[in-house]
């Protein structure tokens, strides 16, 4: 039976599965690393114990999430070759060096300083320890920069030539490759997305503990910080998303038309289709609910501006519209919900009720996973929207895969699913369990704590298991 399955579909499923799972962890750890940097900085500046406690609280969580990000990331660096060897051979000379730079400038930086960040506070003193935290935070951002440059090049390839072997090679300068047309927009949109993801998690954890104990200083502080992020950054994210969309319309019109569900051209100005069931087969959106002119207003900032339709492009260049159409709507819905939460928290803050409005806390709790949903949905939108190409317009997905045998891919896909759900499921359970514990108010300052600071790290387990103090 396995022999009849298409290995390309299996390979795509496997890659999509491993990369989606992986993406969850950096989306959280980029924001958390920066949050930890802010917390430790505030602690050093103010000497206030609440920041030290919050730092330790989130560091434990960060350690587990980061570990899962590392191992799922190592998988990715080999999935390109195992599943997409033709793509790797052809695009390697262009995107390979960018990924090598990611390893050299980011992965080593994060990994090199992570040990000191997690275990070293009493070995190196506060200053160098803060430096280590900063290096980890900066490392996550550098990493995002390179990998998004790679991803953006696949969306809007530039600065390449094609050599005799049919490989993409740099045509001259590397700058047009790195700073390709969609890179700045995608980078801003993604990094803000990661920050919002963390803010939503921090806000939910704060809200959870506020619902149980309104006086917990740690819970109040983290909730307040998270709601500031939501209120200030969610609107910026929506603006950034709008700009990113305009850029995509210019360079990858089929993606935007699939997101919008426009099969027919709209010479008089396009409507905004709110909901419906797009069908590439019938080239129509069934049962659509639309608002006239709003589509052109959003995409062209002019209600009467003409917009092409997917029908203006050959069918063999259409992405799978239903997926793109719906994943986009999920992302937008999450963004609007975050914006709403942020505005609501502003109102509560203005009224002096930030720590009192139970429904606000319940809403923040409910939106805890919204950042993850949004980044995954957004990422599906942009990646599936790039189909049927791996390098947009130039290299088709159907021509990119490895010479694969179905049984090998199927077996490994099953193995990945079992191992990932098992291992990362357990990890998620541990994360939730750590988050369910309230940030203790009375924890001593890290500098006075013996070795690896009270439960920051595995050492707490050692102390517990040996029954000895350091």
């Amino acid at each position, binding site marked *: 039976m396995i022999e009849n399955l298409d290995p390309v579909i299996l390979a795509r499923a496997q890659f999509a599965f491993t990369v989606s799972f992986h993406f969850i962890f950096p989306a959280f750890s980029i924001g958390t690393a920066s949050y930890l940097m802010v917390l430790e900085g505030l602690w050093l500046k103010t000497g206030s114990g609440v920041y030290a406690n919050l730092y330790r609280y989130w560091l434990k969580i960060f350690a587990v999430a980061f570990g899962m990000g590392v191992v799922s990331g190592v998988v990715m660096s080999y999935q390109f070759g195992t599943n997409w060897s033709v793509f790797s*051979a052809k695009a390697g000379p262009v995107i390979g060096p960018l990924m090598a730079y990611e390893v050299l400038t980011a992965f080593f930086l994060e990994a090199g300083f992570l040990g000191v960040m997690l*275990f070293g506070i009493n070995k190196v003193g506060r200053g160098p320890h803060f430096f280590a935290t900063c290096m980890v935070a900066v490392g996550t951002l550098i990493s995002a920069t390179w990998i998004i440059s790679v991803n953006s090049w696949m969306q809007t390839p530039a600065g390449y030539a094609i050599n005799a072997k049919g490989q993409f090679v740099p045509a001259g300068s590397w700058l047009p490759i790195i700073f390709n047309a969609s890179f700045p927009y995608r980078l801003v949109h993604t990094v803000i997305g990661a920050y919002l993801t963390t803010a939503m998690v921090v806000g939910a954890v704060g809200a959870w503990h506020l619902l149980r104990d309104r006086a917990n200083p740690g819970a109040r502080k983290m909730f307040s910080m998270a709601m500031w992020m939501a209120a200030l950054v969610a609107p910026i994210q929506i603006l950034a998303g709008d700009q990113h969309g305009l850029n995509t319309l210019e360079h990858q019109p089929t993606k935007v038309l699939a997101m919008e569900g426009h099969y027919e051209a709209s010479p008089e100005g396009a409507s905004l289709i709110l909901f419906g069931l797009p069908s590439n087969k019938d080239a129509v959106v069934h049962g659509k609910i639309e608002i006239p002119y709003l589509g052109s207003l959003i995409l062209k900032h002019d209600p009467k501006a003409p917009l092409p339709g997917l029908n203006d492009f050959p069918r063999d260049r259409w992405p799978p519209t239903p997926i793109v159409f719906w994943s986009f709507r999920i992302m937008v819905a999450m963004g609007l919900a975050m914006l709403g939460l942020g505005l609501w928290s502003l109102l509560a803050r203005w009224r002096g009720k930030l720590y009192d409005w139970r429904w606000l806390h319940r809403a923040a709790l409910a939106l805890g996973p919204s950042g993850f949903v949004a980044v995954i949905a957004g990422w599906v939108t942009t990646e599936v929207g790039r189909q049927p190409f791996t390098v947009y317009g130039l290299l088709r997905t159907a021509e990119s895969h490895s010479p694969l045998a179905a049984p090998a891919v199927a077996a490994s896909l099953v193995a990945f699913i079992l191992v990932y759900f098992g*291992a990362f499921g357990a990890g998620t359970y541990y994360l939730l369990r750590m988050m369910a514990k309230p940030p203790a108010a009375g924890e001593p300052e890290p500098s006075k704590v013996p070795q690896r600071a009270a439960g920051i790290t*595995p050492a707490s387990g050692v102390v517990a298991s040996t029954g*000895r103090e350091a």
Partner: protein
Amino acid sequence: MEHLDLTIIWAGIIGFAVFAYVVMDGFDLGIGILFPNLSVGGERDQAMNSIAPVWDGNETWLVLGGGGLFAAFPLAYAIILPATYPLIIAMLLGLVFRGVAFEFRWRDPRHRPFWDVAFSFGSVLAAFSQGITLGAILQGVRVEADAYAGGWLDWLSAFSLLTGAAVVIGYALLGAAWLVWKTEGPGQERARRLAFWLGGATLLALFAVSAATPFLTYDYWRRWFAMPGVLLTAQVPLLVAICAATFFWSLKRGAERLPFIMALGLFFLGFVGLGISIYPYVVPRAVTIWDAAAPPQSQLFMLAGAAVIIPIILGYTAWAYWVFRGKVGTHGYH
């Protein structure tokens, strides 16, 4: 001309990354392999603590090896990975298991025995897969029109299983020697005994692989035994003998650091031996490093960064090791 130089430099850098990976993740995978032999409680915690701050950095060299191969020799990356597909997947899954176990076993004391098994199993699986991959590359893969043209089980042979076992034994040796260095008390005593036996087993494995390799093809045979090259290649076994003698002698005398350094020496010599066999191929007898090389612009662009950044990486990696220097103790770092 410039192209040729860059290609050799990049082969050197990737060789260095792979070697750095093998010795660094080698000892922490080795600890995973030895884990069932350590007693539950203090010994295991001590062993785990000795690598917890550095394992992530160690594993990054694997990413550099893979990423660097992708960037500098995309064709080799595109041939080797499909050829060893099940092995690579098995290695990655093994690394997932052992990687998450580092944190999980502390977070969940009730299920610690389970995560200890996961740590051990993952380490053995990763090491064994890496070893078989090495054997598979050495014995050669079928290449047609710049792509892998064999089946998905072609890598399986007596020789590749031998190299798989050899790598597991070798990593265990590194792990034991590391524990001799970093731990004290009964744990160290046990590590010392293990290191003694594993030293013998590693030499045996090294000998078996070395003896089998020249029989894979006449190329390897000529490389090692034809005059005048033999004058040079004969130095490798000679140095192995010196290293091995020093290893056992220092272990017997109660030295703590020298056995680890000598174990690294053995690995280095094994690595040099592999280089002698394979060079200038990256996929033996099918694709040379020049065939597989990325264009000079790509290699030059990366070299500019690598030349500056790799020394910095080595600098702060050394700092991190230095911060956690000395005996690890039974309850973490003081």
